[in-house]
């Protein structure tokens, strides 16, 4: 551990002189202290500034589209850059459906993994297991997209989709040609990408459930599953909800992997086999080649909507998770 550095190397002979230098030093240090704390405060304020800057720029640059279309922008489904008609409904629909599909797949899996790691898993396995799940989070989005294009999509079109349309085609959700690309592929790759975030936060939440809750339920003669259901999951409801909402926030804004497999057709179709388009994807595809100011402004308005939704979703999730984990003594109970 590094010791404190001597401030000066000059030797002082008399006590009075040393006291005097100390005083001088203190007054000199005061100015520097104030400078230092100001500089650090400015860095902190920069975080607020960045948020302000994002809001300001997005609002400023989307005003053209806002004035032209108003609220109709989000109810219209006509996206026609050539005739400058912009309605964002298909993108909103694509984002919502793909994210919800991802949640439906990812939530049971992540909660299962979290429960297994905290309640069932042998201690020796716990560390490596969390490590592997968190590795999933470290893979860049574009690599997931690459994998989805060359492995997942062919798999879907050859095996999964024919099977689904044969068995569940009557629901109307699984009809149409099996191209592989489309909502289903987007939902699945999103699910794979949000499992790590949901399960790692759910794990943290489960860990702060007090140990005596578990012991109490077990003492009543419950099996392990009953203990988990009554003693653990019921106590952790709010926190798990927070984890799920954080996952939703991540899914809503995810860009590259979705763009690569969703099919990029601005249409609203009930079948999950059909192509769709998401808000983030249309930004990725059209922004750098926007045909005019209105087009660019309309795209930025989509960005603004995406930003506002994720801000609200994230703030909600953080508050939920904070209320659960705050004030707990230490992470982990065993």
């Amino acid at each position, binding site marked *: 551990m*590094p010791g*404190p*550095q001597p401030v000066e190397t000059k030797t002082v002979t008399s006590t009075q002189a040393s006291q005097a230098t100390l005083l001088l*030093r*203190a007054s000199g*240090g005061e100015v*520097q*202290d104030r400078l*230092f*704390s100001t500089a650090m*405060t400015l*860095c*902190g*304020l*920069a*975080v*607020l500034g*960045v*948020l302000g800057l*994002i809001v300001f*720029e*997005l609002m*400023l*640059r989307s005003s053209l589209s806002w004035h032209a279309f108003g609220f109709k922008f989000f109810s219209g489904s006509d996206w026609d850059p050539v005739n400058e008609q912009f309605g964002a409904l298909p993108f909103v629909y694509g984002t919502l459906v793909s994210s919800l599909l991802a949640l439906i797949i990812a939530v*049971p*899996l992540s*909660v299962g*993994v979290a429960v*297994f790691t905290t309640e069932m898993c042998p201690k020796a396995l716990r560390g490596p297991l969390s490590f*592997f*799940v968190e590795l*999933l989070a*470290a*893979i*860049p*989005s*574009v*690599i997931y997209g*690459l*994998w989805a294009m*060359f492995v997942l999509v062919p798999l879907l079109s050859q095996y999964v989709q024919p099977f689904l349309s044969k068995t569940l085609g009557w629901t109307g959700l699984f009809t149409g040609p099996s191209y592989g690309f489309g909502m289903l592929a987007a939902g699945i790759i999103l699910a*794979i990408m949000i*499992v790590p975030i949901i399960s790692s936060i759910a794990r943290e939440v489960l860990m702060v459930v007090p140990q005596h809750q578990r012991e109490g339920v077990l003492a009543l*003669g419950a*099996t392990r*599953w009953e203990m*988990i259901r009554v003693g653990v999951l019921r106590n952790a409801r709010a926190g798990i909800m927070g984890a799920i909402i954080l996952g939703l926030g991540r899914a809503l*804004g995810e860009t*590259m992997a979705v763009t690569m497999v969703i099919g990029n057709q601005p249409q609203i179709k009930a079948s999950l086999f059909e192509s769709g388009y998401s808000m983030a994807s249309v*930004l*990725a595809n059209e*922004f750098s080649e926007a045909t005019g100011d209105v087009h660019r402004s309309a795209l*930025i308005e989509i*960005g603004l909507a*995406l*930003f506002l939704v*994720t*801000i609200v979703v*994230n703030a909600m999730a*953080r508050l939920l998770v904070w209320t659960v984990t705050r004030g707990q003594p230490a992470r982990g109970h065993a």
Partner: protein
Amino acid sequence: MPELAATVARAPAVPKISLRRRITDHVMTGLAIATVVLVLAPLIAVFGYLVYRGVGSINWAFLTQTPKPVGEVGGGMANAIVGSAFILGIASLIGVPFGVGAGIYLAEFGRNRLGSAIRFTADVLNGVPSIVIGIVGYAIVVLYQGHFSALAGGVALAIMMVPTISRTTEEMLLLVPQALREAAYGLGIPRWRTTLSVTLRTATSGVITGIMLAFARVAGETAPLIFTAFGNTGWSRYLRFALFGKDFAVPFVRYDQPTAALPLQIYTYALSPYDDWHRQAWAGALVLIVLIVAAVSAVRYVVRRGTFGAA
């Protein structure tokens, strides 16, 4: 001995637990294990396939040449590799000081409402979609410069690094015992000096770990670069110098020109209809992962050695 204890503990309980409850318990345990398998399967599949396709696709040309014209076989991503490193360098130059500074503020001066507001904002910023950050980079840099540039990409990535770095720095500084700070104050050392030479220095390895986490996260980002760095099929600059009476020109990139980046190049090649470009996309993906891991381990190694030397 544990077996005996288990039998003793279970013996009176067995008749009480009904068959249905026991089966439910086993089924639920089985389901939990099944979820773990289902979650780990794609991880293994992604990594396995990445290594399988990547290793077979990397060659010397890939690492040393620039892209060939559309449809031609061969070429490589040398400019994208250098471009990525360059953009990440700019991002770190901007993002690390601000992030660490904000972290110091939160840990040392932030026990108030402003601190809570900044903490909350940082957490929320962490969840802003990267493509939206790209729009901001476009609006504040590209529009003023008049064209896409490495600088714009670096600024966008820096914005993404700050929240992560500031929160981990704060956490690490708060782990430093208060007694160390007090000892320093007792020696008459001013607060700024204490914070920098005692608190921050003690927490160095943790702070660096946070920085590397942020770095690894933005290193693979594609979305914020699409309309900031934009990509480039060649070099934007040559460094010219004379050595032993000969002139050399080393290809490099310019901060104010459209610049290729590895994730962008992977994206473009993946969407192309050419098999050779698909091959290169896989090679690029493997190089990207290896570079991220190498950068993170190198910095951690150096830091660990540095702190041991100081101790």
